[in-house]
């Protein structure tokens, strides 16, 4: 019998006219690694909640190891065998000390103290947190907190791990550590159900379910899913690895890498190159280091083009108290008008703090800040006016929506600027249209009736309605599905094309390749800067980070002597690069071939 058995499952939230899940049926065998994909609001999280008895089933049956989550006694047994990890690391900490948080599950089972201690030790060991056992849980990094959540689940010694977008809020190194841990547990026999927006993570699974508007529209292998024409309609996208191979295959049908690693791409290309023209060997050019090629921009004299300049900015939170913490340590960066600047780095590296200096929410402990040519520290500086010209969208800006109707909330900013009447309506209308919330339709829509993705867009409209010259966006794409992410990136490009300066922080190296300039932060310092090509195609990956997939593959092609220099940052450019190796003339049309990368 299947381990998880779901038949004709229906679910509806109280008061909602539509089903959030309709007619879902599937079976999962013990030891499977299953990914669940779907747009924001497609019902993925609801499905997980139905499995763990957190959401009430309307009709249909759900069985986990033969247990029924709708039966109170069986639910207790079921939860003792199931570990659930949620999206937000901080939200799922129950106790304040690492080992006590880990012990919460077994304590609920009423196990004897010695048994709890044994389980906690082995769970923390598996999650790599044994050294942190007596630290306060809030002091861990987001990645560590998420591994603690897994440890808390592991202490139950579960047969099933349910992961609900568990990697959405952790940085790339934290994510890698987390996924490796999950992979190891799966290899040891645990069944894994992983809800995710990341197509790369879906590739780790052997089987994928896709939900679309509450219905199960796909159940099969990831390789088959990404060949499906409906991909875009389901708000999904193809992982860069598959996209590059697919583009290569369009002109070179034999091009079939054995796996999804950048090295597989290289090996396949090398094999085909040997077959095609054994004599051809591109000469490897020496590769400049990113730092050596970095432009001297940061020492330029300030000009009218500069929307934001941070000059050796240091910032200490709670300075002079027991809890002081240095967030920035001499950061210099600038964003010019008509330029998109990306800040990347691990959690706690100072990205948010740097952005908050950009609209004078934070004042530097030392160093200089100039915002749109003004010094916010000058006497009599009108910070309120300055902040609405240099607007910041905080992380998860949708949490700050407060008016009942969408239109009123978007109008909050321009109203504070003194706009009234027709100009105000026009400002609100155009801001809402820009984020695809048609004014006539959404103006009077209650905020609480919006989906998560719509709320994010409404919050973004509230910032755009200020008509700012400088936009500071703190992780604007976090938690969005691929379609939402793509339209957010398109919006950033459009804002920049209008001559505004845009500074974003992001955990996605792929997003960062779309910027004009990338700053890599580590522990409050800028450790690398330059164009995406300079930062991602140097001999070494940026400190503490990994290259985007296409850039990694491109560097491997160059290392193997196949190309003269690494130049690709995205799937299209990589495919062109590969085809050039095979003697096929470039299609002329990757959107960007990252020309700067070639010396």
């Amino acid at each position: 019998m299947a381990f998880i058995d779901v038949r004709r499952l229906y679910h509806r939230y109280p008061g909602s006219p539509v089903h959030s899940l309709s007619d879902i049926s599937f079976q999962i065998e013990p030891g499977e690694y299953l990914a669940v994909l779907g747009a924001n609001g497609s019902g993925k999280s609801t499905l997980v909640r139905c499995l763990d008895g957190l959401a009430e089933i309307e009709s249909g049956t759900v069985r986990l190891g033969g247990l029924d989550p709708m039966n109170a006694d069986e639910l207790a047994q079921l939860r003792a065998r199931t570990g659930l990890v949620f999206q937000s690391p901080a939200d799922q900490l129950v106790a304040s000390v690492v080992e006590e948080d880990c012990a919460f599950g077994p304590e609920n089972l009423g196990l004897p103290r010695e048994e709890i201690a044994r389980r906690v030790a082995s769970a923390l060991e598996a999650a790599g947190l044994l050294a942190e056992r007596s630290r306060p849980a809030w002091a861990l990094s987001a990645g560590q907190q998420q591994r603690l959540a897994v440890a808390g689940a592991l202490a139950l010694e579960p047969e099933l791990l349910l992961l609900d977008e568990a990697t959405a809020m952790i940085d790339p190194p934290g994510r890698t550590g987390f996924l490796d841990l999950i992979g190891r547990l799966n290899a040891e026999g645990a069944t894994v159900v992983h809800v995710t927006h990341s197509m790369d993570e879906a590739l780790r699974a052997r089987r994928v379910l896709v939900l679309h508007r509450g219905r199960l529209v796909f159940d099969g292998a990831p390789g088959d899913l990404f060949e499906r024409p409906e991909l875009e309609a389901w708000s999904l996208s193809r992982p860069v690895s598959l996209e590059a191979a697919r583009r290569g295959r369009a002109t070179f049908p034999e091009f079939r890498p054995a796996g999804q690693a950048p090295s597989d791409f290289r090996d396949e290309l090398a094999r085909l190159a040997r077959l095609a023209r054994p004599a051809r060997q591109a000469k490897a050019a020496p590769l400049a280091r990113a730092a050596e090629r970095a432009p001297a921009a940061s020492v330029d004299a300030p000009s009218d083009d500069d929307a934001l300049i941070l000059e050796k900015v240091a910032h200490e939170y709670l300075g002079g108290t027991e809890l002081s913490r240095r967030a920035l340590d001499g950061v210099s960066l600038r964003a010019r008008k008509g330029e998109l600047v990306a800040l990347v780095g691990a959690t706690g590296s100072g990205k948010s703090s740097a952005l908050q200096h950009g609209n004078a929410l934070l004042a530097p402990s030392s160093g200089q800040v100039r915002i749109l040519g003004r010094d916010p520290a000058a006497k009599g500086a009108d910070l309120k006016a300055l902040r609405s010209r240099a607007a910041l969208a905080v992380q998860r800006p949708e949490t700050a929506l407060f008016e009942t109707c969408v239109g009123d909330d978007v109008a909050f900013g321009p109203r504070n600027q003194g706009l009234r009447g027709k100009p105000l309506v026009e400002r609100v209308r155009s801001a809402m249209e820009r984020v695809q919330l048609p004014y006539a339709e959404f103006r009077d829509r209650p905020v609480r009736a919006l989906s998560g993705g719509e709320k994010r867009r409404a919050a973004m409209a509230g910032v755009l309605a200020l008509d700012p010259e400088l936009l500071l966006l703190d992780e604007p794409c976090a938690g969005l599905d691929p379609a939402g992410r793509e339209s957010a990136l398109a919006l950033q490009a459009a804002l920049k094309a209008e001559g505004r300066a845009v500074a974003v922080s992001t955990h996605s190296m792929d997003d960062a390749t779309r910027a004009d300039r990338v700053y890599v932060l580590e522990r409050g310092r800028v450790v690398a800067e330059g164009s995406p090509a300079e930062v991602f195609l140097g001999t070494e990956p940026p400190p503490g980070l990994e290259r985007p997939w296409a850039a990694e593959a491109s560097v491997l092609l160059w290392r193997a002597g196949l190309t003269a220099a690494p130049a690709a940052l995205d799937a299209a450019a990589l495919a062109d690069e590969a085809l050039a190796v095979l003697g096929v003339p470039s299609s002329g049309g990757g959107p960007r071939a990252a020309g700067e990368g070639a010396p």
Partner: protein
Amino acid sequence: MKDLEFFRNATLGQYVDSRSRVHALAPLTKYLGLLALAVPALASRTAYAALAVMALGLLVALAAKVRPAFLLRGLKPALPALALIVALQALLSWPGDASAVLLRLGPIDVTLGELANSARIAARLAALMVTLGLFTATASESQIVHGVEDILAPLSRLGIPAHRLALVVGIAFRFIPILAGEAELIVKAQASRGADFGSGTRNPLRRVKAWLPVLVPLMLRALERSEALVEAMEARGYAGGLRSRLATYPVGPREKALRAGLVLFTLVSAILVSMAPAPFGT
């Protein structure tokens, strides 16, 4: 320019992990210590007595390697409330206040008795805040919870759910920094949209209006966060029933003696300070 920082002076509720001998005590002992200072502070009838209790608290802080300045900074947010109390004392008269009038301004007169009362109330409040600050600086969140559990443990035989009550206390403490963090984010979001924060307006009406866009989403977030916490707890098998506990706090003979001493001190000092004659017959 002012930074929008919320935690700067909020020392109440902040644990200072200095690993002193005070920190090493069992939670129950720390609760007894809290009582030993709080009871005489509340019972005190003169400002001197309350200040003496505060001084004692600061001495214990030294032993606990918690800087007295850290605890005193915690008084800063309470200053407006103190000012209000003193003003009310001056405005209203005590019945039968026969003490000397120091100052007369139209209908308002300030008497020596009123002055003494203001000083006593201020000193009591300060002593209490220092005591509580010292307690939270030396007892971590989980120890506060375990302490409640240990105090109520005898009652659980009578069917009183000690653990559930302890959990309520623990969650209340946990939500202080959570709500402060959420409030900070929301304030920053609204300030970025031109709301009046940190731009130094003194108009009280504008200040109140500026806070409305913070309170509404803050309430929503508080509900969302508590719902998330409930789900996280349920998913790990919490059902409110019988549980076991990982943490234990072995208590040696010296600590047992200390506990007895603290109880004795509480009783004696409370009697002593409350017997002292209140000045000026108030």
